């Protein structure tokens, strides 16, 4: 027995020792950043304390009995086996407690459900495996993917990082992503990056959902392929995004800040890799953000010629965002699910056919007509030539050479 006690004690100590390393470490539900989330937190604490109270009473009685009413202490068993009054009492008291819980809970349900009088609307569409946001009032829209740092690190984990020079260049060039100043020297293949090197590992995105504070925002949820669920704990709720249907929810963020969350409905292979980041800012800052984002959105893509090396390096970023989930970081695909790109006839064959194929998509692969011509040119040059993928066709295509190869009704 002594050994087990020691083992237990050391485990607890390990846990406590480790825990001090993280500042945002928590044991309880977070209070959140909205009035609603505070209301839900209070409700959570109320029920938790009710449970603690009942637990102390029941377990206290039981342990008293275990201690005092044992045969080894010579306790003789009494033979009672019914007591109607007691049984009625312990049916009625829990009922009253439940009624006491149901009243604030009902109020919270009504509050949560009240999507009236919202001041702006954002449509959220879940995809395998990223989110798409559309600001219905202003017309701003963008995709929000896992950030490059987390993407590269979780995919390269365990693989020889020296094989992926383009990605490591990317780690340094992608905006907002660093590796805590750790210099990554691809040529000398050291050091390999670990999850702990990436700030906000798996909880960061390339483009944040920016919202103004103290404004009642209505969210509309739907999905393109399978069911996803949009959860930012600080907002106090999650809501499923069902394909073919629209769900509603609302929030009004009190304080400027960055609030992180994740997809919470199993949505396939990369379910764990589609985080959500909400950035709440003051109204004037938000207005400025909206203006500049709209302007950028209206700008035509830059179709200037690039060098072969530039095409491949930038193509790595496009590949990372759009292709890597299925075809994998080294282009090997997933056996039985997604084909490999290495040596694939479709990839290394006729360039025009490849462009048409990417624009059209198939029943299994989505169409990539959403990519701007420069992105498509970089991507194609990358998958045909990058050592990461294992192809070496030796050609390239410039952005201004991309034309629609796929005719449709539009």
């Amino acid at each position: 027995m002594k050994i087990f006690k020691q083992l237990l004690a050391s485990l607890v100590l390990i846990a406590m020792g480790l825990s001090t390393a993280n500042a945002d470490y928590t044991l309880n539900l977070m209070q959140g950043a909205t009035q609603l989330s505070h209301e839900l937190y209070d409700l959570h604490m109320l029920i938790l304390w009710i449970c603690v109270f009942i637990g102390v009473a029941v377990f206290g009685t039981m342990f008293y009995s275990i201690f005092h009413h044992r045969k080894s202490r010579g306790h003789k068993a009494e033979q009672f086996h019914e007591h109607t009054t007691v049984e009625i009492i312990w049916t009625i008291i829990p009922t009253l407690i439940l009624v006491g819980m149901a009243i604030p809970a009902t109020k919270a349900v009504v509050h949560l459900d009240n999507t009236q009088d919202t001041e702006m609307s954002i449509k959220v569409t879940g995809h395998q495996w990223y989110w798409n946001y559309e600001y219905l009032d202003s017309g701003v829209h963008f995709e929000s993917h896992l950030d490059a740092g987390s993407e590269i690190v979780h995919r390269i984990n365990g693989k020889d990082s020296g094989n992926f020079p383009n990605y490591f260049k990317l780690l340094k060039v992608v905006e907002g992503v660093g590796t805590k100043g750790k210099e990554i020297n691809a040529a000398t293949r050291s050091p390999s990056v670990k999850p702990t090197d990436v700030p906000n590992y798996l909880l960061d995105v390339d483009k944040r959902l920016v919202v103004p504070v103290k404004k009642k925002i209505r969210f509309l949820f739907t999905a393109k392929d399978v069911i996803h669920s949009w959860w930012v704990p600080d907002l106090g709720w999650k809501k499923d995004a069902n394909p073919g249907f629209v769900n509603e929810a609302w929030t009004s963020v009190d304080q400027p800040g960055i609030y992180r969350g994740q997809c919470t409905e199993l949505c396939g292979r990369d379910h764990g890799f589609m985080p959500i980041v909400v950035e709440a800012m003051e109204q004037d800052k938000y207005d400025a953000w909206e203006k500049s984002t709209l302007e950028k959105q209206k700008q035509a893509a830059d179709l200037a010629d690039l060098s072969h090396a530039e095409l491949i390096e930038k193509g790595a970023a496009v590949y990372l965002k759009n292709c890597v989930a299925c075809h994998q970081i080294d282009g090997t695909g997933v056996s039985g699910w997604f084909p490999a790109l290495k040596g694939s006839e479709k990839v290394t064959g006729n360039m025009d056919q490849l462009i048409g194929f990417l624009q059209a998509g198939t029943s299994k692969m989505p169409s990539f007509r959403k990519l701007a011509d420069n992105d498509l040119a970089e991507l194609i040059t990358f998958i045909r030539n990058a050592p990461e993928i294992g192809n070496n066709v030796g050609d390239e295509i410039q952005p201004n050479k991309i034309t629609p190869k796929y005719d449709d009704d539009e």
Partner: protein
Amino acid sequence: MSAVAADHHDHEHEHEHHGPIKGPLRWLITTNHKDIGTMYLVFALVMFFVGGIMALVIRAELFEPGLQFVDPNFFNSMTTMHALVMVFGAVMPAFVGLANWQIPLMIGAPDMALPRMNNMSFWMLVAGILLIASTLFMEGGAPSAGWTFYPPLVMQTGKAFPFAVFAVHLLGVSSIMGAINIIATIFNMRAPAMTLMKMPLFVWTWLITAFLLIAIMPVFAGAVTMLLTDRFFNTSFFDAAGGGDPVLYQHIFWFFGHPEVYVMILPTFGVASTIIPIFARKPLFGYSSMVYATAAIAFLSFIVWAHHMFSVGLPIAAELYFMYATMLIAIPTGVKVFNWTATMWKGSLTFETPMLFSIAFVVLFTLGGFTGLMMSVAPVDFQYHDTYFIVAHFHYTLVPASIFILMAAGYFWLPKWTGNMYNEKLGRLHFWLSAVSVNILFFPQHFLGLAGMPRRIPDYAIQFADWNMVSSIGAFMYGFSQLIFVYIVIDTIKGGTGEKVTDEVWEDAAKHSLEWTLPSPPPYHTFTTPPEFIPTEHL
């Protein structure tokens, strides 16, 4: 476990005419409830380790942040298969095995009412589990959409898809046949003096469970058949593009799924109500309220299903209704916990291994009940839903509840079945290792869920690292501790401590239930004439 024990019978009864047939064919064609019970129990124990290995794959991957061992697809297959194997391969068959062994012995019947169907339901279970296990080796891997098989995701399953559907059909047929058999046995085969309200609680809980099974397994079979026709025959039950609704599937699934979790817990209640009075040397407190509470829980289980779907976009009226209905379950469940406590109160308690596991069950199941009460509150469930808080909740109601009680049942009845006493010291070692490690394993998952870690993810953010590591350490401790149980079972069959047990095994047990009036081990055929004496101590 009693292949050897059965041989043992052979020696004792080789002059009798009605022993088992010789050779391995016996196990294929047997219609004897004791043989079939043994096969169910052995099969369940094997599956417990198969499902356990899958759980350890999951916990190994989650030991540290980053992807170390498995592909995310395989990880998802593991969570899916772990659940299917544990639910349909381990816990349910284990209770059917107990029912096979114990119900005829407890009600004074010579065998189950439908012995040939009994054999068939066992072998269909084996076929179903082998079919689902075979999907692990198919192109595209085993199903990875979670044991709930939610469309549209489940439609992306590879070659395994139809095999998984047919496996569910086989398992469903097997369960329904088992349930019909149990109902027929209880209604028709009781000793004349045993009225319904004199039956031991284990028999009562199984009677109610069997009705649940008959009601829900066809619903699940129907749901997966609709998936099958959606995929292969162009129907659109769950496809919005064809006018269907993916949420419809969730309603159908949970109409099955919620009673299904009570299928795993009601017989657990029955065993606990059997064991606790014997080691408290006191009659069970409130026998009739226990029966009514079980029936009430079973009824409520049919009208609360959508509490698994609060965040799916229910109308406000449905959210309120399912919240109130779910809260009501706390009342009969509370009655049960209070009754167990009152049974122990002013008893003369001893703490043999079955009692230790039963007490741990009452305490830890109640913890699982508390978190259940917390998540019945719909608005807060918007935070808890699909996080590790839920994982912690239902594992508390399954592992230190159903699994602990199955272990307790093993220690409790093994001396009766084999005639040998198990090693009490090792039994207690097994208990303490299990009780400590199961909490190291699952308690930190509450923290993880509240801190924001979703379920079913193969990799996680750094702030979840510490408790995941603790949880994984607990998982390996718990998993390896269970090997002690295997050793004890084999050792007991081989002779155990060498001490021959009495017919009663436990002090005054014969006052509680009929099986303790039989020899230990009982002969191959028992109660060929119904007993006249009915123990009533449990009333």
